[in-house]
């Protein structure tokens, strides 16, 4: 007695049927798991990006029922204005200085820490800890530190025979103060990344160099620094992108001032959108910010592809 299912042709058909149903069910599960995540991105990330583009072509105060289409007027206005040129310059200065100092000091600290030292890992964690703290809280602590009469920094400046500037009341000093605080907050991140990068350089390279009689400088120059290029690029990319998003410390410490001395592009976007109620200009700022960050990412990716030496 042969049962129906034992027939090879039927079996094959049945198996195919099951596989098909299984695949459909898997695809449905996939949609259920991924769907909400992608839907939220569509609503709160991709759509806003497009909408920013639209807003940059209109004149609107966020309240009026109609938005007036003005073409490229907002762009023309901003790129012709001295104020906006200053804001772009501020953004450049802030990013260049904070990224440059963070990476440079982080590299020096990591090179010093990259040896057998008691308590080294604990120090690494302590240096990293400010990166975990609220930017608003850090900004407030540092206002107190920068206080020209009762602040911590004044103790040192006085000991050196100087007089504390009115940090947050003069444009260049306020920019310097904001940069100092950002470097203080992010230094540990750079140290952690560089230490990890140093650990990844193969020890045999140092051994070989030593056998060849290379001194410490030569080893630093020919092995360590080239070996660190991949993490350096990673660090540059992440800190540059983070600096374009820097908001909380600036908001708390200077409010973009005095006048607009510490107003960066992201701060300008906030200011125009939520204080000045000028959706068009905020839209231009948002579009510009996005384009700058996107091009950094792409340039970085292209550059990394060609030049970085993977140790």
């Amino acid at each position, binding site marked *: 007695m042969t049962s129906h299912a034992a027939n090879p042709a039927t079996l094959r058909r049945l198996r195919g049927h099951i596989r098909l149903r299984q695949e459909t069910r898997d*695809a449905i599960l996939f949609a259920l798991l*991924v769907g909400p*995540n992608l839907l939220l*991105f569509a609503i709160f990330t991709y759509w806003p990006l497009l909408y920013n583009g639209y807003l940059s072509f209109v004149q609107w105060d966020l309240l009026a029922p109609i938005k007036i289409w003005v073409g490229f007027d907002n762009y023309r206005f901003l790129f012709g204005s001295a104020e906006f040129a200053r804001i772009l310059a501020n953004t450049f200065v802030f990013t260049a200085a904070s990224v440059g100092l963070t990476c440079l000091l982080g590299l020096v600290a990591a090179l010093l820490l990259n040896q057998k030292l008691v308590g080294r890992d604990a120090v690494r964690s302590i240096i*990293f800890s400010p990166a975990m703290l609220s930017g608003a809280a850090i900004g407030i602590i540092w206002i107190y530190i920068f206080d020209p009469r009762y602040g911590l920094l004044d103790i040192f400046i006085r000991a050196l025979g100087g007089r504390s500037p009115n940090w947050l009341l003069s444009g260049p000093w306020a920019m310097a103060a904001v940069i100092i605080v950002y470097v203080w907050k992010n230094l540990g991140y750079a140290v952690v*990344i560089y*230490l990890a990068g140093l650990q990844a350089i193969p020890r045999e390279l140092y051994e070989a160099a030593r056998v060849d009689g290379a001194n410490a400088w030569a080893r630093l120059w020919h092995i360590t620094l080239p070996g660190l290029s*991949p993490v350096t690029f990673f660090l540059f990319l992440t800190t540059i992108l983070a600096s374009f998003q820097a908001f909380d410390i600036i908001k*708390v410490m200077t409010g973009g001032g005095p006048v607009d001395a510490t107003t960066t592009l992201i701060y300008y976007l906030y200011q125009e959108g939520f204080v000045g109620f000028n959706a068009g200009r905020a839209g231009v700022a948002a579009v510009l910010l996005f384009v700058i960050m996107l091009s950094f990412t792409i340039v970085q990716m292209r550059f990394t*592809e060609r030049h970085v030496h993977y140790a």
Partner: protein
Amino acid sequence: MTMWDDEDAIMAQIGWTQDWKREGALPQTIPAPSNRVEYRSGQLARAAGYGGMILALLIIGLPVYWMIIGAFKTSAEIYRMPPTWFPHTLTFANFGEAWRSAPFGRYYINTIITTAFGSGFEIFFAATSAFAFAFLPFPRKDWLFLLLLAALMIPNQVTILPNYLTVASLGWINTYQGIVVPGAAVAYGTFLLRQYYRTLPTEILDAARVDGAGHLRVLYSIVLPLSQPALITFALLSLVAKWNDFLWPLLVTNTRDMRVLPIGIFWLMVEEGTIEWGVVMAGTLFVVLPIALIFLWAQRYIVDGIAAGAIR
């Protein structure tokens, strides 16, 4: 566009590949020096190393110390010239004063709720979408994954104005969902966990399937427990980010009752400001203390996770 050919290659280029095997104490890189000159320079390097360690500790530690002693100083002492290194009279009054000047109890509740839900959503979405992308079939799956990764290039800061309009039109201003929902989706965590899932031994997963376990069962009882290190690191980073979030809650709340801690401390400073530094420092301690404790407890997971993120 050629650069989109393989998302692993892209992420490798910008350094986003993971090596989670690299855990525990850092190995020592430089072997013991062999001859006398090398020995001398080794001693010198060590001295410089300890010098650098002390300097770094001072630079990072002093501002924190300044905040802590500020919170314990009397107002009279704070405004004495020159400033003092140790509080002459230790006072706890600033903490009570801060708690009375602003509804910190309410701020804590708000922050705990928005952090729990904000991180909860992120961790849930990351764990489940990563599973789908790693193990489930779907037409054009890799395109969808790139679509998700593209979100990494669009920071929240760029989208604040349209999102504010959306949240306002939903009537979500001054609500928890207004604070939480726009930031609930997660791209980085999805990528991170998918990479980790793909390193798991397939034999175990297959064995579970042969035993008749469904996908969700495999995810819950095998994949998630095996992925604990990656999950914990991501969860901690998400938690810290949500707790400290400033810009978005600042925009979508305008009543005192709905403020979260970072916004609350900002307004406390604006109101009390340079008149009552002791009170403001006490309030600042309220904000940073929980995160400082979490970091103290879990620093290894966080720091090693960050380090692993930069190295392939």
